[in-house]
């Protein structure tokens, strides 16, 4: 069974540009989560989808971040326009039941 996959693995963009990160959860997992680890800090929750609905987006830092999960399958996280402080590793996770979250490899975003 394929795990959670994220694309790209690494992205380097200039400040002001737009970047879209993609996450493909494990097939059949209704819950999809985005997390972010900024350099040297803890991994922080961004938002949670249940199928295509946003269950909790309390961790989204500001309106430059837009997450979608059309059809309840894969999800995208768009940052527009990107700022320097957005640099970090973005993790996606999916779960079917409580407590069983599986993480992807992460996307390392570098904004220069």
């Amino acid at each position: 069974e394929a795990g959670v996959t994220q694309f790209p693995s690494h992205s380097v963009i200039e400040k002001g540009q737009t970047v879209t990160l993609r996450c493909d959860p494990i097939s059949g997992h209704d819950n999809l989560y985005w997390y972010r680890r900024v350099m040297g800090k803890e991994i922080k929750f961004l938002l949670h989808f249940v199928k295509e609905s946003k269950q909790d987006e309390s961790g989204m830092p500001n309106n430059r971040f837009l997450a979608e999960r059309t059809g309840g399958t894969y999800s995208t996280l768009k940052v527009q326009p990107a700022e320097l402080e957005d640099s970090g590793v973005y993790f996606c996770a999916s779960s079917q039941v409580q407590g069983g979250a599986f993480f992807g490899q992460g996307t390392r975003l570098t904004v220069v």
Partner: protein
Amino acid sequence: SQQGEEDPQALSIQEGENATMNCSYKTSINNLQWYRQNSGRGLVHLILIRSNEREKHSGRLRVTLDTSKKSSSLLITASRAADTASYFCATDALSGYSTLTFGKGTMLLVSP
């Protein structure tokens, strides 16, 4: 208040020694999980311990949970250089979903 605070922040040991990392949290939980992140790679799930469990083993890993003290420990026995990584504990609250709260992690360096 911050959930899942690990200590120490950094730990340096020799191969063959045991490594112990601790985690404290503040609110009631369903589960506590430990993850590992190797440099440049994603989060790897190590072990999950439920709130009604006190100890769990998986290979060279031993996790304890003391809900009265709201703390957990991760013991890696007979460490190897390949164990070098950052280790995070993560808790999920009694909300019914797997939204995790991570600490800043313990960076473990195992020298040959």
